[in-house]
């Protein structure tokens, strides 16, 4: 969940469908070896665009085929990295401000309440936007520099509305 919240690259220009690009470093062979021991019918495989082009017998997921026909996937990832290296004034900064004095202090984890960012980023965030999460209840506020370049603020739950 946290990796999706912090996802720095997505493609959202296709009608009705969003693609999240997540960096993942694990070795597929190690994963497959454990899966075989457990009797789980999943086999993971890393493939480059060149591998895919060379092997025409592979039947790839239709959404992947559709997206790779529209955009250059490697270039899209690189462009997102360039965007995130831009100075603050060149970025599209949005601030999600909550008031949660007891945030993360309780013994029980509530996947919805404790993932307010995931909920609102899912509703609003688009590619090449930087969304920042602050909990005013814990004394967290955007600094002056960030405030100066913020394009939009989403104040969520005043003290009187805290759940």
């Amino acid at each position: 969940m946290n990796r999706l919240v912090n996802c720095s690259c997505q493609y959202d220009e296709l009608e009705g469908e969003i693609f999240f690009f997540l960096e993942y470093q694990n070795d597929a062979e190690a994963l497959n070896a454990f899966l075989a021991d457990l009797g789980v019918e999943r086999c993971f495989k890393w493939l480059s665009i060149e591998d895919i082009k060379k092997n025409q017998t592979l039947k790839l997921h239709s959404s992947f085929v559709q997206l790779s026909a529209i955009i250059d996937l490697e270039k899209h990832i690189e462009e997102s990295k360039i965007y995130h290296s831009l100075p603050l004034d060149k970025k599209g900064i949005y601030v999600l401000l909550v008031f949660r004095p007891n945030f993360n202090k309780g013994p029980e984890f509530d996947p919805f309440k404790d993932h307010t960012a995931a909920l609102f980023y899912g509703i609003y965030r688009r590619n090449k936007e930087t969304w920042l999460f602050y909990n005013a209840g814990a004394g967290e506020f955007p600094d002056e520099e960030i405030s100066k370049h913020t394009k939009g603020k989403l104040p969520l739950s005043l003290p009187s509305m805290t759940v």
Partner: protein
Amino acid sequence: MEGLSKEYQQQSESKFSNNFCPRTEYNHFRKATVLLYRQTLGQTKFLFYSKGIDDSCLEVPQGEFRGVDSAITFTAVRAILEETYGLLSDSTFNKLAQNQKITKEDLFNPKVVQFLYAFCFLVYVHRVSHNLNFGKAHILQNG
């Protein structure tokens, strides 16, 4: 860099052109697809999985948006859990990195995930929905 910045500025100007974010500006995706990638030696590779050892049909985690998801981010999480039994989670990743063995207890049963999702959604409706409505109506433009 200049190009990226101008493109962004045009998008943001249309998105927050007044104090209230119009309904049409919300994301309304019906499907979420997760592409896992890694970059080594200047080459980008994508992670696929097949449902059998010799299967040439290669899949990526994908989920259809359902009401219980409430936002597309949760659809993506559900897709990863349901399609890969949670094998791509951080906990499994860390275990592999430390050469620890993965056991059946580390895996998620997709049916259990669906049940938990439905349960959590009911709790969520009661506890958070008023916050959502409040937030939607109060998008403020800086300056």
